[in-house]
């Protein structure tokens, strides 16, 4: 264990530099937040992730945000265990009928002010699952969505750029 820790010190950090916030996300957010009271988040985001029926591909890439390369906690982005601690619901998947109620309740349990980010093509337009008897629709069919991050699945860097845009927009 000691040699492992020592090696980590010698090798130095694996993190990448801070990417620029995604410009498309900034403009989508400007529209979404224009008529809403802007409240400062102290430049940090507490995120509750909700899988509303994804294939788990998006979850893998969201998980990757916490690895030593992206290390999102350095930007004040933190994944929390309860919606009661969250500023943001990060929702993936086409919303299945079987998950609809759980998603609505999670949203209801999240205190104001709150934002909803829909990650992945399925969350945006149901992706390949559009038209299924078992899917309600995209996340926007169930909750008001402030930001979409497309991709199948979106890469960690894309998710990070979107979340950074959200921090900028909400604290502007």
């Amino acid at each position, binding site marked *: *264990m000691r*040699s*492992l*820790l020592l*090696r*980590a010190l010698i090798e130095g950090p*694996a993190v990448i530099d801070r990417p620029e916030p995604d410009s498309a996300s900034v403009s989508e957010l400007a529209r979404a937040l224009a008529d809403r009271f802007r409240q400062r988040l102290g430049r940090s985001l507490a995120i509750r*992730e*909700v*899988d*509303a*029926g*994804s*294939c*788990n*591909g*998006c*979850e*893998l*890439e*969201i*998980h*990757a945000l*916490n*690895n*030593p*390369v992206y290390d999102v906690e350095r930007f004040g982005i933190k*994944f929390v*265990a*309860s*919606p009661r601690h969250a500023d943001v619901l990060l929702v993936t*998947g*086409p919303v*299945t*009928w*079987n*998950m*609809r*109620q*759980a*998603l609505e309740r*999670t949203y209801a349990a999240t205190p104001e002010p709150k934002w909803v980010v829909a990650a992945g093509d399925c969350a945006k337009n149901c*992706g*390949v*699952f559009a*038209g*299924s*008897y*078992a*899917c309600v629709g995209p996340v926007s069919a169930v909750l008001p969505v402030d930001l979409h991050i497309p991709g*199948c*699945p979106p*890469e960690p860097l894309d998710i990070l750029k979107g979340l950074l845009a959200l921090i900028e927009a909400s604290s502007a």
Partner: protein
Amino acid sequence: MMAAPAIEIAELAGGKTAGLDGFHRIKVKERTWHELAAGCAAGHQDLGGMWFDSGAIQMLLFSEQQKMRAIVALAARSGVYPSVGCYHAPAIRLERALRDIHGTDPQGLPDARAWLDHGVWPSAAPSQKSGKRPARNYEFLSAEGNGLHQIPVGPVHAGIIEPGHFRFTANGETIVRLEERLGYAHKGIEALCKGADIDRAARLAARISGDSTVAYSFAFARAIEAALGWPVPRRAEFLRGIMAELERLANHINDVGAICNDASVVVLHARCAHLREQILQVSKSCFGHRLMMDCIVPGGVSCDLAPEGRGAIEQLLKHCAKQFEAVVHVYEEAPSLQDRTVTTGIVRPALAAQFAAGGYVGRASGRKFDTRAIFPYAPYGLLKFDMAGRSEGDVDARLMVRVDEVRSSIDLIRQMLELLERGPIRGPAPALKAGEGAAMIEGFRGDIFIRLRLDKHGRLAHFHARDPSWFQWPMLEAAIEGNIVADFPLCNKSFNCSYSGHDM
């Protein structure tokens, strides 16, 4: 249980030749169906899946000793057929799911509850004929005794996890009973595939379980190739194998770290997550997608490996081998870690055998089954590897099976890079025609099975996929009994069953 003599599939299939895809096709009468089900219960053969197509209830039976796989069909025009679950418990959830989706009526099935249908779909599933819908309140199995309390968990969990519900009944800290309720991620994939062309169905198959996207595409491609007689070039076979092993490597390494994380050794988690990231980055540079989604297609692969890609993979393997061994060394030398994993969450070998639990769950409990070794498919027939195995059945055994498989995957990729020749990467598409095909592929989690049927225009008339999780989720319920609630995350991670793959 009804009494019926137990028979082996070998008695029925003996002497006959299997289809090109390696599966026997046997039509049976009701009496033989009973006897085969009793044969499963007696341990003569394993049940590998059930589906309903063309007015017939069908099941996959296989025997690792006899190296034989058979698709057994029983005509059931109205959907009424004798339940397999009343003989052989592993069939119960399969039959409940079929009843929800197709309106089949398994006579004698000992569980009347719905499984995938939570009673909230606006209409019944398209293939479900009867309009009968399940009640919205779901009755969990009971546990009685002094001082018992229930802990409901999910479908929204504390971490970044898929949706599912766990109902614990505990006495203080000790779990007396765990019952799972799944189906939250049900997306109706089989119905979406019906009538779809091959390209669309391939994209759907690749999204059954994102962590096994390569394995699912692999299985789908092989089933289509069997149905149409589509030849695959040698180079494509090796590229498929390389992708499949990279996927296994990324998942196994990540999960070893995640198990250590659940035992609070964060530094190993960080190491492993970093390794996974490096594997995904190389996968993207070589094949164009971090998870290699849609890279395996019927007839071959969609992207070739550039000459510099080979060097990148070789370097990655060298780096992974060195770094991962350092992680394993820490794991083996840390009594505080072993204290959490050894003797925690034991799956008894008899139970793993009964359920034909695939992957590391079965192999950690003495079940010597790995599709790559027992029913080898291209390119594995040309490669050498030792099947990993343990018999303790605890979290430690499942972790160590994965450690061994990381080592063998690294070696397998090296062998394949050596054997990789120049050539085309996709075989010429044959004329579309009606046909049927099946395939079994060893994903990182275990054996994935796909069976499909094409109509004369080459569109999918039937599609069925069975994730290994179907036979692993019930093991988790058994493994956790008598353990403390605080050890559940550790146990669950050592299984890492797929919710989406199961719910479909």
